[in-house]
């Protein structure tokens, strides 16, 4: 187990290093941050001063070396735009994104699992067909369009929910959370549903496919032959086994929701990390872009690790030692 963990961590560090190099070169190739950030009427002297202030006068490899040295001391650089440590900026915005992503995932599981189970157990039923047709919509409607439609219907015409923003927040562990206040939950509802739509469809389809496959297995037939109640067969024998693919996919989906909920966050003016990263890319704020992507890589690695560990709990046949390679 320890060997396995150490190996995973080393792999993670290599990936992070490679990623930071790629982003450095990528941002350099796109353009010059000073051209974008500087006031158009700045004269040449001011432009040179700004280039120097941001450390962009050095050759690229030196800039990268400076970055690495500082990164090893835990300093991922200061944002060109906000003049604050990049990591601090990201962490400030993280609670907003985390609660949205978890909210969406919970909604997806609460709605997706029962519907998927139902559709799997009664594949020919009329309601099952409605569910499956609905899940196609969930997959194919573009997020920004659904988001705007939600706003138009529930905020502008019906006036039930606030259109944008985070609302009141409560404090927990020194951080601001929307889910602690009623106003915050009202603000969260639409963006969370918007993010969840795709996931609901995904969970429905995975569950349904899993159920249909598992129902034909010998151990299910045997359980039935033993005379166990249908409920016990469904929830113990079938449900537990179909959870493995669902856990994997939902885990990875959670990761990508945290990392890339850009569209939903900008449509709903939700001040999370997704909005930060897209704003940073627009002005080539390299320290923030690099720090953000490094964090995301680490997060994905951590999620994968957790998924693997969960596997071994759900399925005793999986041995971690054999999976590390």
């Amino acid at each position, binding site marked *: 187990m320890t060997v396995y963990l150490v190996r995973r961590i080393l792999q993670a560090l290599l990936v992070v290093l490679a990623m930071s190099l790629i982003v450095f070169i990528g941002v350099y190739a*796109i*353009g*010059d*941050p*000073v*051209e*974008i*950030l*500087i*006031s*158009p*009427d*700045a*004269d*040449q*002297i*001011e*432009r040179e*001063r*700004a280039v120097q*202030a*941001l450390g962009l006068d050095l050759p690229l490899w030196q800039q990268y070396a400076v970055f690495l040295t500082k990164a090893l001391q835990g300093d991922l650089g*200061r944002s*060109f*735009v*906000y*003049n*604050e440590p990049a990591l601090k*900026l990201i962490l*400030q*915005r993280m609670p907003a994104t985390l609660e949205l992503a978890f909210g969406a995932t919970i909604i997806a599981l609460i709605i997706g699992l029962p519907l998927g189970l139902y559709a799997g157990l009664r594949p020919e039923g009329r309601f099952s067909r409605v569910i499956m047709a609905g899940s196609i919509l969930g997959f194919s409607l573009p997020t920004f369009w659904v988001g*705007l439609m939600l*706003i*138009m219907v529930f*905020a*502008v015409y019906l*006036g039930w929910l*606030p*259109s*944008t*923003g*985070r609302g009141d927040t409560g404090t927990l562990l020194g951080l601001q959370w929307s889910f602690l206040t009623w106003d915050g939950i009202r603000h969260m509802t639409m963006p969370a549903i918007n993010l969840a739509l795709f996931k609901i469809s995904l969970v429905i389809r995975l569950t349904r496919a899993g159920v249909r496959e598992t129902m034909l297995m010998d151990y299910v037939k045997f359980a039935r032959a033993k005379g166990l109640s249908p409920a016990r067969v469904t929830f113990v024998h079938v449900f537990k086994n179909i959870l493995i693919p669902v856990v994997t996919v939902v885990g990875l989906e959670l990761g990508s929701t945290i990392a890339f909920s850009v569209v939903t966050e*900008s*449509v*709903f*003016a939700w*001040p999370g990390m997704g*909005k*930060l990263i897209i*704003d940073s*890319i*627009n*002005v*080539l704020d390299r320290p923030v872009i690099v720090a953000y992507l490094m964090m995301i890589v680490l997060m994905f690695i951590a999620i994968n690790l957790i998924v693997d560990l969960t596997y071994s709990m759900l399925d005793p046949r999986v041995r971690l030692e054999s999976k590390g390679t």
Partner: protein
Amino acid sequence: MTGKLRKLALVASTAFIGLSAQGALAQSVTMAVAAPVTSLDPHYHQLSPNNAVADTIFDKLVNTDAKSNNLPGLALSWRAVEPNVWEFKLRPNVRFHNGNEFTAEDVAFTLQRLPNVPNSPSSFAAYSRPIQAIEIVDPLTIRFRTAAPHPLMPLDMTNVRILDRETHQNATTEEFNAGRAAIGTGPYRVVSHRSGDRIEFERNDNYWGDRAAFQRVIYRMITNDAARTAALLAGDVEFIDQVPTSDLAKLRQDNRIALSETVGLRLIFLGLDHLRPANENSPFITDNDGKPLGRNPLQDVRVRRALSIAIDRKAIVDRVMEGAAVPAGQFLPEGVYTHVPGVTPPPFDPDGARRLLAEAGYPQGFRIQLNGPNDRYVNDARIIQAIGQMWTRIGVRTTVEAQPWTTFIGRAGRADFSSHLIGWGSNPDGSHPLRNILATVTREKGWGSSNRGRYSNPRVDGLLDQSLVELDEAKRVQMVIEAQRIAAEDVGVIPLHIQTNIWGMRRHLAHDARNDELTRAQDVRPAAR
């Protein structure tokens, strides 16, 4: 102005007493702006959204009205006492939000801070650079000594927000952003700031000028255009800026919504390649078979004029901009003191354009690529598409390439393009576009830093040079107008239109539209009923 505001304040306060429930609502306003404010440090980043918020919290020696005319701010009056010395008489009895008194020491401290803000991506240092020495005559009189006569000193001072020496001696940008150091003399004080999300303001009841209408202001940032309009329609916010042109028709008909608009100071224009001499190829111009032309047709003023009159500016304004602009033939709109009288938007004349091309030796035209950004100016990509079709109609076969600003601006700066669309937001003095766009690129003078077509005309340069040391304001304005007229006749750039600035609000509000695009809390008040 003052009387009107007082009356409104009276109306507002009477309403407050009369109807306590509604009155409580009228005491606060929620605004939403399109562009995120990146810092509350007024000297960290020269950026319009930051400047708008800074004008809410701080004051300048010279403030500006909605038409960008200079007004006494923290200075009551100013004059050049000697050719090289400006004297500012300061306003007495002004206090910062924390109670500290404002004096000449604070002005001196502010000017010394400008070049010393660490990591600034775009500093205000240029406004203190001409000042060689600062002399405090008495606590309410300060003198700036310059190396040469500097007529633009009052204009420079409209950009410098004054800090308190005692409070801000060692204040860092981070402390400003956290709200702790965001202490000025302005009409509002900062209650809280959540970066990229919202700022909450509270009225400064001890403000020296007209009291702001609302006791509390929530200043939100909603970057997505459709979401901002929806938030206004839903009533979540009561006031928005940068109303998207696609929503204009709908909002004009909505009786819950009022709009405030004014012609702005931002010209959208085409820059042309003046860098390659007449006998060399321009990078994106070929003959009709796609072979090198062997010369740069843009060096011929007849070709430039032909390209200019081939553009139907009115059609672009009406159909692409949905009326949210006025056709232009120069940088500044009518009514601004350095507007060039008699230089009108070039009339649309495709036949005349063809004749000019033939005269210049291109009866069959040529091919050109027109470049531009697609995420910077209102409808930028659609404008260059329209122009591409108009040029093609006079025989200049045009391909159009729109790209993100991040990649576009670097290439434009290196003069990579033959023709490109770009915009310029002026201050109201014609010396501003002249210095930055029409003057020959000269590092020592700081000229032409945004002259991306590398236009150069000795007569323009000469007049600009004289005007920059002319203390007689009438003479100086004449020189600035004359230099702009020469550049316009020479078609140094092709002006297209000046954008209209549009704000949207619920009916119960009114707003003084500003031509400098700044969205400030103190400009919003309850509508008179």
